[in-house]
């Protein structure tokens, strides 16, 4: 694996922003009422993340170190405004569904986090790939959480009723609490509990850091 594909792998699997690093919890819980909404939010964030990585990497030698954070915020906020206008014009359904959470992409810590820790120090191509990887990881996680909530809470998947698309027909009474606010907490609780049980790396059980330390140790020993 060369260092370009490694960036994508890192974002989607190894340091998945939602499932491993536990960043951006607010949008994760708020918009995943259906698989489509989760996917839409993921893609919107992906676009902002890729563009902000591009611009911040491009301007990394121009922006003075002392005012870099306000500088990044202005860049990200401008990009979010553009994305918001595009959604309003071309995908009004998604614009209505995501509502206030679109402008709130500005305060999604994944974006500023990647800007500060990666794009401000690396070349343009690598930064774009890093943003793409992180964005894809975020999209995948949100779509999956949205799918789980939609299947349990509404009995549909991407809007299609389950008992119509499955080969055998059955009656399903949706547990509607899963598409309401409390369900979001329960699904995330279940997810982190499974991660704890299987000892998977996650920021919530401190394993994300530990495995990193172990990996470094292993490298030294080699």
């Amino acid at each position, binding site marked *: 694996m060369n260092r370009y594909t490694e960036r994508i792998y890192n974002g989607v699997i190894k340091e998945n922003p939602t499932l491993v690093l536990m960043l951006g919890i*607010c949008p994760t819980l708020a918009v995943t009422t259906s698989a489509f909404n989760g996917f839409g939010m993921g893609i919107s964030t992906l676009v902002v993340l890729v563009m902000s990585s591009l611009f911040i990497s491009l301007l990394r030698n121009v922006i003075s170190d002392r005012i870099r954070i306000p500088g990044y915020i202005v860049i990200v906020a401008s990009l979010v405004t553009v994305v918001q*206008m595009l959604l309003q014009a071309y995908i009004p359904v998604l614009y209505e569904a995501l509502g*206030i959470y679109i402008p709130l992409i500005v305060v999604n810590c994944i974006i500023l986090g990647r800007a500060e820790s990666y794009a401000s120090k690396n070349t343009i191509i690598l930064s774009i790939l890093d943003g793409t990887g992180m964005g894809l990881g975020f999209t995948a996680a949100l779509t999956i959480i949205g799918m789980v909530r939609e299947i349990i809470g509404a009995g549909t998947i991407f809007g299609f009723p389950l008992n119509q698309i499955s080969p055998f027909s059955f009656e399903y009474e949706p547990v509607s609490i899963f598409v309401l606010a409390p369900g979001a907490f*329960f699904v995330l609780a279940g997810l982190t*509990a499974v991660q704890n049980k299987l000892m998977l790396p996650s920021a919530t059980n401190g394993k994300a850091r530990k495995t990193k330390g172990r990996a470094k140790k292993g490298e030294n020993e080699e």
Partner: protein
Amino acid sequence: MKELLLILAASALVNNVVLSQFLGLCPFLGVSRRIETAAGMGGAVIFVITLASAITSLIYNYVLIVLNLAYLQTIVFILVIAALVQLVELFLKKHSHSLYKSLGIYLPLITTNCAVLGVALINVQREYGFIKSVVNGFGTSLGFTVAIVIMAGIRERIETNEISESFQGYPIVLITAGLMAIAFFGFSGML
């Protein structure tokens, strides 16, 4: 007056900012270990959000609308909030040292609290004037404080309980939050 009271109750209880709108979850999960720290965070949030909704409302209604620049709201609001938190910190450090000491460490954390920007945007979305914006901001932050203090109280209690291994730490806190969200659902019949 009745309308203002309705806005206050709706923003504090019915549409609780943390438990039904999912804004400000990071401090809600991060600073809710002890009741005192939770109350300190709540106080700082009330202070900043009320002030921020007053200022963003003035800027939106008397600058952005007048100049026909409403589409710049996100950029302007986030910069105003970041600058405001810095200013408040400097001001308190100089003039009210006791308040600065009690809010001190929580103030910089608030810039990253998405509830502040969220309230400013909700005020614009609902076309609230100055007074209504301030009331909505105060109500929202009051709701945040209520939720985080209750959460801290519960977490202090369950610390000594036996919890199955895979649910220790985050999962049990999230389950608690989910149950609290169900309880707050009861308020939705109120209005």
